[in-house]
């Protein structure tokens, strides 16, 4: 029995979608556990003015969790992928900025953050991680049809 290519892609997209949801949850929880640290991490970038640093630090985990729920439900998957890619672009800009400025900081993406010993800084690895995440988001943007999704339920009505 031949397996249709579109069927295979749907399964891959489902995995991608769920992986992205997992990554977002994995990123949001440590921030919520030590929200002061999350604020300090944003401040260490020295990009945002103080009030925004505090606001972004405290509300970013909620954005991450909301997007995670959309991805878990398979709700407006293509738009979710766009939001994900926009977030990745912002973070990549942030990492590039501190790399260029020479600040020795830990990115704070998964909790933690702030200054580290310059020998421990690993901007290339962080950038690679970002690129990996962009690839996930790009895949989902191009192939947003997935199994077990509200999008699918909505489409099945057509």
């Amino acid at each position, binding site marked *: 029995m031949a397996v249709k290519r579109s069927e295979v892609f749907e399964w891959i997209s489902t995995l991608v979608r769920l992986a992205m949801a997992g990554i977002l949850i994995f990123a949001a929880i440590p921030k919520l556990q030590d929200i002061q*640290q999350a604020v300090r991490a944003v401040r260490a970038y020295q990009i945002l003015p103080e009030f925004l640093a505090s606001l972004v630090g405290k509300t970013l985990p909620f954005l991450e969790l*909301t997007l995670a729920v*959309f991805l878990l439900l398979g*709700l*407006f998957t293509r738009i979710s992928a766009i939001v994900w890619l926009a977030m990745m672009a912002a973070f990549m800009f942030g990492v590039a900025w501190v790399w260029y400025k020479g600040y020795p900081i830990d990115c704070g993406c998964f909790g933690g953050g702030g200054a580290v010993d310059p020998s421990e800084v690993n901007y290339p690895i962080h950038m690679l991680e970002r690129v990996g995440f962009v690839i996930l988001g790009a895949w989902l943007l191009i192939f947003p049809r997935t199994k077990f999704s509200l999008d699918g*339920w909505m489409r099945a*009505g057509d």
Partner: protein
Amino acid sequence: MANNKQDPLDARAAAKAKAQQQVKAKERRTTVIIIAAALVVIAAFAGIVYFIVNSSKVPALPDAHAPQVADETGGIPVGTGGVAGVDVPTDVTRVDLYIDLMCPVCNQFEQINGKDLDSLREDGTIALVYHPISILDRASSGTKYSTRAANAVAVVADQDPSHFLAFITALYANQPQENSTGLSDDEIAAIAIGVGVPADVAGSFKKGEFEKWVIAATDRASQDGMTGTPTVMVNRELLDPKQVNYFTPGTLKAYLEQLSGGGSSADPSASS
């Protein structure tokens, strides 16, 4: 759209089925949009509420209940006699020390520079201000050791300032490993009693009287440029260890002496 079977009854039934399907599709689409909108609204609401509640839980430094000897930067100055808040020289080089009591690198800094800083403080060359902050609570397995230790140190500064420095030294000597459960409140109290802090003062650590001040001072430190510990400021400017490597014995002392014109003004014949 023509069917293969051209029976008009079938064609009407097909059209009706298709119309019903379109209504159903529209209903499903509407449901999904409502779910999505509801999620976004709930999330935005939760985020805003969280932001407001959290911002009110952590007071701004000027509003926090602080140890009486604390200054407006969230630091505890120590004077020439070694007593917190007493005989602190003005018009001299000011050294701010931001430390987390769980931080092993802070302990190293203390081992390397402790005696030098003490002698510079005692002869009035520098004004030394300690900032016991808390950035490593996540490294004490949920027991918030950094915050509890910083609070204890603040209580001693407030109630028994002559033992402030000895208490810090003793806490460093008994520093728990990162990612352990830290020291318990009783253990911290025992260490305090061991350096001469009265038992009732040590017993009050667990009340956490200055915990909000510690959090506010930590946030203030972060706003002032502290991104990790130890952080050293000289005359309220961050000291870059790449410029003045204070992990090499003697480097910090030489730098401070040179900055202060080579020793205290009481002995003009001294040279750096």
